[in-house]
């Protein structure tokens, strides 16, 4: 017994030690998991914590019914009332207070979006998401957008009112950050294990720069170089013309009631220039991912971002009041690019519209006297110059007028999440702008977006204008991105102007070609005067419209504004709808916004039917072509979701484009050059024997008719193979849908397979994957009590579990518009969804 006792004690001790070690290891493991993030997996402790972690996102999903707090810097109390659609109506007594509350309110709903977009411009995404964003950050820094934005901000005098207001907005954002609890941290920060950063007033200018990147980026000359190498300069000029072959300009031409279609024969393709191809490929590689995302085509050279706007004069409106419709198209994301807001300071500001979260402006909206909206002008405001440098690898000087000039150097260090430098780049600047290296060539960029101009101030002031004329005067200083600004007022005026800085080029410079940088004579000499901008006011036709088409007919003004214009089929459709309706109602305006018909079909379907009929007589046709043509004869030409023929037409156009522009496919190591606009293809339809119809992959020499027959035959076979015999599987809603991705691309946070009445040439053009579309649709009736309706694809909240995250998607999908509340006083907004009262600090 005496010997067993110590053994038992030893065993007990051993068991205790083992238990201790085991529990210690488990505790250490659990604590390590809790405290340390591993790769993309955030630290589990703070992430799962139901009081402050990811679960708290549910607690903060909806706005509290009533909230009140004090923030520094306010002079008076500010009342914020959220209507049933979650739109904040901000009532302040002073403009500075309004801006402070504005910043606070937007940050409350969209903080992560604001920071992410700012970082994308600044090239600091890697600090938030890690090295996966390194290349995007390097690209952003090479573009110099943040550099340019900071120059703009620094140029605003310290004493200016505008600087004070932008700073107040920024202070408002930071006031929100200061009072945030751990539970308020947006969802995405938690996924990334990141923390919100303080806001700086210059970030507003970063966001404006981002809009310029989306809308004013135009590196046509880089993409065009490969076309020239493949088919020669003459052909390239014809395929990507400065004068669109179908003219339906924004500025109406007196006496013209339809489009002017240019005749003429396209010059034949020249043989490939293999020496130039290699250089061209390096240029095309230099055409950045940003370009691809903003000018993505539908395979027939169409630009997928297709905005529309139109206004109707009182003479053609049922109620005798001017009407305005805005339908800006952009890349669709969740949270949405826009945030709806109503701002009021009695006697000074009473503006409703959409704002870019982070920018204290309402670029599209209305006030008590007028409404304004925009489509992108797409003018050529970015030129490339080929520079001669002293050292290909590490240049220090560049040649100008026979002398060596020093290059300015900008050192850019991209940091990762830990703060460690991931990569340091040197960006070289000539007097024109930053340089990029394309193969062995150094190209400098001259771009209006990098000029020291102040769009923020101009847009803010314009939203307070009391009439169309006042608006146009204020906007005379507006520079970039150039927009077709359409306005209408309660006095019954309607007006449009393609507003922005359009360069006057010197010497041999051509906007659509890479220019010799060794001569200062080739530099820009200034900009067009505003009175030369394409414009119209109260035209005799009683309406105005724009849809990104060439704004001015070159027969009216041959000055170069750009090239390779988007095809004008949307503009033609809008004008047709407006011409045929002499008593337009707001509801008709709404209906037009989702019109499913394309004017493009008129150019291709009748000739295709004729070609198939002729081929049937001679027997030179297969059954697929006959069957396909018969099916398309049954088509009503509408891209409605339940349509079962649109798919056949769409694939036919794809086949036709691919076969026609086969000359633009180079050697196997060269990526396919961009394809011409469908307006050029429509122009080519007039020349049935053009050598462009010849498909080089076949022995025979094709003509227009034989290619049309081949295209419809191939289309029928492809569609039947993929979707079976004609039937419900051919339904357009199952084939062409809208995709709205979350800004980070997180699955589950986006929305997919949304059926849309979109197709080639419709008001909502389709680019195949449907990730672009109407970002905000609204209609305003300029009656004494302004009435408005609108919606956008998403919702006001950035919180993915909030009801307000995507609550507008059903109305947007159905083409409905919500009534927009525009109360004159806070008290007029009965039963608000939530209220927030901000008081000055004691």
């Amino acid at each position, binding site marked *: 017994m005496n010997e067993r006792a110590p053994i038992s004690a030893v065993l007990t*001790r051993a068991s*205790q*030690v083992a*238990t201790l070690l085991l*529990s*210690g290891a*488990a505790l250490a493991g659990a604590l390590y998991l809790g405290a340390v993030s591993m790769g993309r997996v955030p630290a589990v402790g703070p992430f799962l914590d*139901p*009081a402050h972690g*990811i679960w708290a996102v549910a607690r903060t999903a909806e706005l509290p019914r009533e909230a009140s707090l004090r923030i520094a810097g306010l002079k008076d109390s500010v009342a914020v009332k959220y209507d049933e659609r979650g739109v904040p109506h901000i009532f302040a007594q002073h403009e500075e207070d309004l801006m402070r509350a504005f910043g606070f309110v937007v940050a409350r709903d969209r903080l992560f979006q604001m920071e992410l977009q700012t970082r994308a411009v600044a090239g600091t995404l890697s600090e938030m998401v890690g090295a996966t964003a390194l290349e995007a950050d390097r690209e952003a820094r090479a573009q110099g957008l943040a550099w340019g934005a900071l120059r703009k901000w620094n140029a605003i005098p310290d004493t200016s009112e505008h600087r004070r207001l932008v700073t107040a907005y920024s202070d408002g954002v930071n006031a929100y950050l200061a009072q945030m609890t751990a539970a308020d941290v947006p969802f995405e920060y938690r996924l990334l294990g990141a923390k919100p950063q303080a806001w700086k007033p210059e970030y507003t200018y970063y966001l404006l720069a981002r809009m310029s990147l989306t809308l004013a980026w135009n590196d046509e000359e880089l993409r065009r170089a490969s076309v020239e190498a493949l088919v020669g300069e003459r052909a390239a000029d014809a395929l990507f013309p400065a004068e669109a072959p179908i003219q339906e300009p924004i500025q109406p031409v007196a006496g013209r009631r339809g489009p002017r279609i240019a005749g003429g024969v396209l010059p034949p393709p020249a043989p490939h220039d293999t020496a130039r191809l290699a250089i061209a490929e390096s240029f095309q590689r230099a055409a950045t991912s940003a370009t691809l995302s903003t000018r993505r085509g539908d395979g027939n050279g169409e630009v997928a971002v297709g905005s529309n706007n139109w206004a109707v004069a009182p003479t053609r409106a049922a109620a005798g009041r001017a009407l305005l419709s805005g339908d800006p198209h952009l890349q669709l994301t969740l949270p949405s690019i826009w945030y709806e807001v109503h701002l009021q300071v009695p006697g000074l500001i009473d503006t409703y519209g959409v704002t870019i979260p982070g920018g204290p402006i309402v670029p599209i909206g209305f006030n008590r006297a007028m409404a304004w909206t925009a489509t992108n002008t797409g003018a050529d405001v970015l030129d490339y110059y080929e520079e001669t440098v002293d050292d290909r690898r590490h240049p220090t000087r560049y040649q100008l007028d026979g002398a060596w000039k020093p290059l300015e150097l900008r050192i850019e260090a991209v940091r990762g999440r830990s703060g460690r430098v991931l990569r340091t780049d040197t960006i070289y600047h000539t007097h024109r702008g930053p340089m990029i290296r394309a193969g062995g060539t150094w190209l400098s960029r001259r771009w209006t977006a990098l000029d020291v101009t102040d769009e923020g101030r101009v847009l803010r002031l314009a939203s307070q204008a009391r009439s169309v004329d006042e608006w146009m005067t204020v906007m005379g200083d507006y520079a970039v991105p150039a927009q077709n600004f359409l306005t209408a007022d309660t006095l019954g005026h309607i007006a449009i102007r393609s507003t922005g800085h359009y360069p006057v080029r010197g010497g041999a410079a051509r906007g659509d070609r890479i220019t010799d940088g060794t001569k200062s004579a080739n530099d820009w000499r200034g900009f067009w005067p505003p009175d030369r901008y394409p414009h119209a006011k109260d035209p005799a036709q009683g309406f105005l419209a724009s849809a990104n088409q060439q704004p001015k007919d070159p027969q009216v003004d041959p000055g170069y504004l750009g090239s390779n214009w988007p095809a004008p089929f949307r503009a033609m459709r809008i004008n047709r709808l407006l011409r045929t309706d002499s008593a337009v109602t707001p509801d008709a305006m709404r209906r037009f916004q989702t019109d499913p018909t394309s004017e493009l079909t008129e150019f291709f379907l009748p000739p295709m039917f004729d070609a198939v009929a002729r081929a049937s007589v001679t027997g030179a046709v297969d059954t697929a072509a006959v069957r396909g043509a018969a099916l398309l004869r049954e088509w009503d030409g509408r891209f409605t979701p339940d349509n079962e023929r649109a798919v056949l037409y769409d694939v036919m156009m794809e086949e036709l484009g691919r076969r026609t522009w086969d000359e633009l496919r180079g050697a196997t190591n060269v990526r396919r050059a961009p394809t011409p606009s469908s307006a050029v293809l429509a122009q080519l339809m007039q020349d049935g024997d053009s050598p462009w119809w010849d498909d080089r992959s076949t022995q025979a020499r094709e003509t227009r008719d034989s290619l049309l027959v081949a295209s419809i035959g191939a289309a029928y076979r492809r569609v039947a193979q993929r979707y079976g015999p004609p039937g419900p599987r051919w339904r357009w809603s199952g084939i062409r849908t809208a995709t709205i991705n979350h800004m980070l691309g997180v699955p589950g946070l986006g929305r997919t397979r949304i059926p849309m009445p979109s197709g080639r040439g419709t008001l909502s053009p389709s680019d195949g994957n449907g990730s672009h579309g109407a970002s905000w649709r609204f209609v305003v009736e300029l009656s004494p009590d302004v009435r408005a309706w609108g919606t956008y694809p998403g919702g006001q909240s950035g919180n993915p579990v909030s009801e307000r995250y995507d609550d507008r998607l059903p109305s947007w999908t159905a083409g409905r518009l919500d009534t927009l509340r525009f109360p004159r006083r806070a008290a007029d907004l009965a039963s608000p969804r939530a209220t927030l009262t901000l008081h000055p600090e004691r």
Partner: protein
Amino acid sequence: MKWLMHLAGLTLVIAAGTWIGGWWMVPVVAGAYGAWGTRQPAAVLTAMLAGGGAWGLLLAYDASVGPVLRLTQLFGTMFRMSGMTLVILTVAYAALLAVSAAAFVRGIRRLMAPA
């Protein structure tokens, strides 16, 4: 009954600790309980149940004021698993923190105790 009182009390203390101090309060409170409750025969088990229960309680509160169900569905889509998996993981993680902390501290106490 006494054990149930212990369990309920510890659950509330861990929940309050998490609410005030954050996730790391789970092992701190459970560890303290492990040290204090060495004479409790089921102290480690109690800590485990209280840890999981506390976070379950907080989750229930979240669900009473916000769309937790929608959040679980979202997680299900994001991580391609059942939405409830993250709920279970959350409760299980708190239980793991609590049981390991209580057992560890209790083990030290026992080792340090005179033979």
